[in-house]
């Protein structure tokens, strides 16, 4: 299975490299790119510990039982290497002993055809290739810093725009509907997700002690971040199910019980997060659970992908129903519903696409950098995107804001406390002189649908009037 490498995990690992620790003791230009231990340099404690673990593993592992020549297991001074058949390469992640070593790069060792480890031609010394570990460190460090700030800015902007949107939704009681209630919950989950991600990055980036000593709080924050990520996607699923129920399953039913949506959106994401925590503790209990080299992360990403695919299926089903069944009979409504669905239909792929293109980072340097930028923007600016599409581009919200602005300007008396269904009717009534009766009956549903522009629904109704007059 391919290993998921979340940009934020890579970011975390590289940010750790900013910490002042020992610099490498060797010059990598010369062939002795090996731990050149001399009397002056004493190996640091981490290396001694790794050495201990290596020899323990070496004496414990079963004897090599395949036929043919092979190279014996060995400790090369920095990393442990298993028995491998002659004529093959072995590779593992670069160690983290030195601050200019990139742990996402690979160190390699070659076993030649005679069953001996590769010796460097210059001094005939057994040699492992650590050159990739610090080759691009300086440039990478710069990129990492840029990505780190991009992430923080993205989440901060998301939190700001989400809180403004929430403020708008809570302030304008006239906007209150079931769909808006779902939006409020969605925005809350995005805000909490941004908050926990910022906390998590700060813990990893700055407070070295928490990471080095493997404190529990580090893992708790990681758990909460993953729970919140699950909540985001499951609330999007709730939105999709709500629309589906409204349009396809029980048409024109207004009030659904929201308890099940709350359960799916807030309660259910605990399940994959807890299973991941248990699996991690039992099998892959690394420092702060930071490693992205494990397939256990699919425990979180699998249900999220399932939720996205199911959501997409629901939305496509809605579009199918709208296009085929309502086209002939309810032209006006189908257009309005289409506009409502359009917002969700745009969002679901945008929220999901970074999970799909994730594993395919281009090899080429420039393309890789562009990929990193795009992935970071898609991942960390989602809150901003969601609040913009669901709130700021919403015709009803824009209308409510305009009205408020007009009221303040004209210094009218009391704010009209309109009921959800009556507000829309009165809005359209002020703009259109005559409206057919049947459109009033369905106005209550149009309020739950977020048309992109208020004027469009107005024009649609005008057209409907012409058609049916």
């Amino acid at each position, binding site marked *: 299975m391919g290993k998921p490498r979340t940009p934020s995990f890579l970011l975390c690992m590289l940010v750790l490299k900013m910490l002042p620790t020992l610099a490498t003791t060797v010059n990598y230009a010369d062939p002795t790119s090996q*731990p050149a*231990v*001399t*009397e002056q340099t*004493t*190996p640091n*404690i981490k290396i*001694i*510990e790794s*050495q*201990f*673990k*290596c*020899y*323990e*593993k*070496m*004496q*414990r592992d079963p004897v090599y039982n395949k036929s043919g020549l092979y190279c*014996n*297991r*060995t*400790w*090369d*001074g920095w990393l442990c290497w298993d028995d491998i058949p002659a004529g093959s390469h072995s590779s593992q992640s670069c160690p983290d002993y030195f601050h200019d070593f990139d742990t996402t790069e690979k160190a390699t060792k070659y076993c030649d055809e005679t069953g001996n480890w590769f010796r460097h031609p210059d001094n005939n*010394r057994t040699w492992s290739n650590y050159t990739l570990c610090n080759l691009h460190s300086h440039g990478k460090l710069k990129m990492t810093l840029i990505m780190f700030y991009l992430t923080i800015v993205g989440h901060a902007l998301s939190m700001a725009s989400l809180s403004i949107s929430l403020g708008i939704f809570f302030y304008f009681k006239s906007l209150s509907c079931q769909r808006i209630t779902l939006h409020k919950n969605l925005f809350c989950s995005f805000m909490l997700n941004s908050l926990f991600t910022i906390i998590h990055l700060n813990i990893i980036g700055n407070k070295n002690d928490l990471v080095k000593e493997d404190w529990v709080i580090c893992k708790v924050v990681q758990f909460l971040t993953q729970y919140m990520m699950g909540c985001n996607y499951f609330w999007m*699923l*709730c939105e999709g*199910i*709500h629309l589906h*129920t409204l349009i396809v*399953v*029980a048409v024109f*039913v*207004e*009030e*659904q*019980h929201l308890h*099940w*949506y709350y*359960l*799916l959106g807030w309660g*259910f994401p605990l399940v*994959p997060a807890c*299973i991941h925590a248990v*699996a991690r503790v039992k*099998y*892959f209990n690394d420092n702060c659970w930071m*490693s992205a080299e*494990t*397939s*256990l992360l*699919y*425990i979180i990403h*699998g*249900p999220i992908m*399932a*939720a996205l695919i*199911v959501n997409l299926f629901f939305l496509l089903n809605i579009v199918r129903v709208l296009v085929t069944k309502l086209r002939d009979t309810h032209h006006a409504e189908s257009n309005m519903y289409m506009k409502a669905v359009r917002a969700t239909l745009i969002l679901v792929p945008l929220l999901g696409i970074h999970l799909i293109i994730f594993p395919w980072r281009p090899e080429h340097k420039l393309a890789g950098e562009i990929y990193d930028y795009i992935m970071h923007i898609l991942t960390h600016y989602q809150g901003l995107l969601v609040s913009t599409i669901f709130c700021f581009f919403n015709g009803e919200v824009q209308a409510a804001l305009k009205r408020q602005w007009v009221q303040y300007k004209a210094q009218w008396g009391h704010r009209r406390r309109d009921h959800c269904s009556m507000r829309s009717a009165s809005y359209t009534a002020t703009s259109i002189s005559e409206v057919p009766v049947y459109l009033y009956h369905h106005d*209550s549903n149009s309020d739950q649908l977020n048309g992109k522009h208020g004027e469009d629904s107005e024009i649609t109704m005008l057209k409907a009037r012409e058609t049916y007059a």
Partner: protein
Amino acid sequence: MLFSFSAHHFILVTTCENALYSQFIQEFCFDSFKFVMDATDEKYWCDWEKTQSSYGDLTNCTILIAEKLKCYWPNQVVDDFFITIHRNYFKNCPLTGRAPRDPPNNVLCAFIMVPMLITLLMTALVVWRSKYNEGIV
């Protein structure tokens, strides 16, 4: 320690001789390590906090002698030497050195498929429940 080289051991070294290296680390490094380990209680041998310093000294000793004999460190002799040490002193210690690794494939599949199936079931449940709610028009 190095000053206790006796005269017949003092040889002009130009290239590394594995036999000589092996002999020296047995004589000079292993003996002092053995002395320290025999002095501590056997139940503390697996306690890394306690054995860390003597293990570190042993490693440093092998490095210094390698330096003196113009041998590259580490090498096959060092590997064999330490494997023997581990067999004698750290054989039954609880597994510390295992790099974290994924569980076997069947366990991993179970861990991944179960949440995905529960997700689909939960979604179906929510759709079903919202379908049969009483509507208020």
